[in-house]
């Protein structure tokens, strides 16, 4: 039995992401969908395993992208079935088109949108603070700080969602998603195999302009309601009685608590720890700030709380100084650590820090870096070598441009491969190839993986066919979403026996998009592949090369053949 299906009450050492899954199970979630992305991937992985083991308990799918997953979960919640979708921060960019208007129609059963931000950019392409999506969409945000809260707030989010008839965003970060701690489990509801039923109401669910105007009004009313809920939110906590105030949320709460212990400054400080961070509890903040000499806001990334608090104080005509990201204390860059927060609090209070001198080894040479690299035997390495050899053989290595995409193969940017010249987001290899092909005379050869192609490469390929763009797109089909831990995608041909979903082959899709020049190679058969690639690269047209061989790690896992 899956560990998260154990009956409570008991305590388990859970990863934050696992705790979210348990919370959703305890809340009776029925429909779940996701596209994988670090640091959110373990949520989908666990739901996938649970669905495989107990298909009657809940539905789960790895959708082709976050927007689709959002729509799957939204419809389920509209039909009266509790649902959840999860994504990394940049995944919300993809899903945002659905989300912004989903806020207008709302939900009937609870819907939770888990969004995992990545301060310090451990495994992402940017460091965006997705709490701003809450502001833009008017959706409430809860920010957990510990694995226990990951579970408890997931359950709470379902209740809140139903009270407001709005999806609720559960915003995590790398250091809450990937922190492991004891979680006191509650009980699981009895498995009910009840279908939802969608009650038609075009005046609510069909966003033509007239309806959208009405629904916007409803949304603003719901937001007012959310504001009053936020002000009475029982998990927002005030501690201490000092006249210097700290406001913090998420993982920063832990840094603040440890710092206060280390500095022994409990009596000088009061803390307002916010769990519901959107909409802000204005009255709570106002009451907290009264009698405080100054406020320090401790939050990673953007001054989201800080600006909100300033706005509240400005409306009250209170001029208590608010510090945070405006240069003196914290940077917008990177995640926090205990010493950084402790140092800031010491300066805020004007007390001495308790710094420990780090060990300084006198003759430490510069240490060789150990960046992640493509695995031994990886088919991507073979494909890169074949393309490189052909490009050199054809003599245009000085005039070639390699747009790339998001996946293991992005590591092709590292020596000795160094065949990655431009990357901004999922699917950008195809669209940017079009742009380079019309703006330069460079030969454009771009790379995209199978999962990323399905995620957001297909529409750009149709565009390239229609517009008549000339470039060569190499689709690196390793039959899995390898980077995030081997999740399935529609194209996979190597699957575990219990995986019965319909395969959509990349070649069919590419031909269906209207590409005339389609070549296939096996990257492990270099001698056969070289002339094919040479022929492909000699065409001054839109060309797709599908390089097909399973990820070596994945093949080992599912017993696939090479």
């Amino acid at each position, binding site marked *: 039995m899956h560990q998260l299906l154990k009956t409570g009450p008991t305590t388990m050492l859970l990863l934050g992401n696992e705790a979210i899954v348990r919370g959703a199970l305890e809340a009776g979630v029925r429909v779940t969908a996701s596209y994988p992305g670090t640091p959110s991937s373990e949520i989908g992985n666990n739901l996938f395993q649970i669905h495989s083991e107990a298909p009657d308990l809940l539905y789960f799918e790895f959708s082709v992208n976050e927007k689709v997953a959002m729509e799957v979960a939204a419809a389920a919640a509209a039909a009266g079935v509790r649902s959840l979708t999860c994504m990394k921060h940049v995944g919300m960019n993809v899903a945002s088109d659905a989300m912004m208007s989903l806020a207008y129609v709302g939900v009937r059963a609870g819907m939770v949108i888990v969004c995992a931000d990545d301060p310090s950019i451990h495994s992402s392409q940017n460091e965006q603070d997705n709490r701003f999506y809450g502001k833009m969409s008017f959706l409430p945000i809860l920010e957990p700080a510990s694995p226990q809260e990951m579970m408890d707030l997931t359950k709470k989010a379902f209740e809140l969602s139903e009270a407001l008839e709005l999806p609720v965003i559960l915003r995590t970060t790398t250091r809450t998603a990937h922190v492991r701690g004891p979680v006191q489990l509650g009980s699981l509801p009895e498995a009910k195999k009840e279908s939802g039923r969608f009650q038609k109401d075009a005046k609510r669910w069909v966003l033509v302009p007239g309806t959208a105007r009405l629904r916007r009004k409803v949304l603003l009313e719901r937001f007012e309601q959310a504001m009053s809920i936020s002000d009475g939110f029982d998990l927002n906590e005030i501690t201490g009685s000092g006249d210097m105030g700290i406001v913090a949320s998420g993982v920063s709460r832990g840094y603040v608590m440890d710092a206060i212990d280390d500095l022994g400054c409990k009596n000088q400080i009061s803390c307002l720890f916010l769990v519901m961070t959107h909409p802000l509890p204005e009255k709570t903040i106002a009451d907290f700030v009264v009698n405080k000499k100054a406020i320090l806001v401790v939050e990673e990334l953007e001054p989201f709380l800080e600006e909100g608090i300033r706005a509240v104080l400005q409306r009250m005509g209170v001029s208590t100084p608010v510090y945070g990201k405006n240069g003196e204390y914290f940077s917008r860059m990177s995640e926090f650590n205990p*010493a950084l927060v402790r140092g800031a609090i010491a300066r805020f209070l004007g007390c001495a820090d308790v710094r420990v001198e780090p*060990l*300084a080894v006198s003759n430490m040479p510069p240490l060789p870096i*150990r*960046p992640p*690299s493509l695995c031994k035997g990886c088919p991507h390495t073979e494909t890169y070598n074949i393309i490189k050899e052909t490009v050199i053989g054809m003599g245009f290595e000085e005039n070639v441009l390699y747009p790339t995409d998001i996946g293991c193969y992005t590591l092709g940017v590292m020596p000795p491969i160094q065949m990655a010249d431009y990357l901004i987001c999922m699917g950008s290899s195809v669209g940017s190839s079009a742009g380079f092909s019309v703006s330069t005379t460079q030969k454009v050869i771009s790379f995209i993986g199978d999962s990323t192609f399905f995620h957001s490469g297909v529409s750009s390929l149709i565009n390239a066919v229609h517009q008549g763009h000339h470039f060569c797109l190499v689709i690196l089909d390793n039959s899995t979403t390898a980077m995030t831990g081997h999740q399935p995608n529609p194209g996979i041909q190597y699957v575990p026996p219990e995986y019965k979903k319909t395969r959509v082959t990349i070649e069919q899709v590419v031909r269906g998009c209207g590409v005339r020049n389609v070549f296939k190679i096996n990257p492990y058969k270099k001698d056969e592949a070289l002339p094919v690639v040479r022929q492909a690269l000699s065409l001054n047209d839109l060309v797709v090369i599908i390089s097909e061989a399973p990820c070596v790690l994945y093949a080992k896992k599912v017993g696939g053949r090479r």
Partner: protein
Amino acid sequence: MKRMKLLFVGVGGQGTLLASRLLGEACMKNGISVLLSEVHGMAQRGGVVESTVMLGGLKSPLISLGEADVLIGFEPLETLRAISYCNKDSVVITSLSPIVPNMVKLGASQYPDINSLFNEIKGMVAGFYACDAEELANKIGSPKSVNVLLLGMLMGTGLLPVSMESMEDTIRTQVKPKTVDANLNAFMAGVNLVS
């Protein structure tokens, strides 16, 4: 219980996260407040892996420079890279078996002279325990249990607030059934090396 901050560092594929999790599970069994953090993501691709084990009621998942009470390095270069997380009162446990990075293989940089550096470090910290963990693991027939061998060394220092039985029990229940004996052997070898 006194607060304790342990930093585990290694290379993707070495089982660093499993080792820290085993310690976390054993602590939980002993009623000790524990929080672990893990860096996932690109780790599977042979990059650096770091995890922390925070004991005694700490709420921060991370350790700042100079603030690790114990550093457990699964690979000597990674121990060196993380050494500034230690201070004069820290205890260092390290494997001496190098995993040579690609940059070195390509001739782009040089693997450091670990012996002379560790000699210096030994005199700067409160405790220093090192062994050629791979060779030892091979010798006792547990080649894949370098991580648990180092966990055994940590146990052997007597610093951990958990009992021997609960640590062994945790290993028994948490590792793959087929590997229980190999792991217990490695664990005991580590314990005996230090205590």
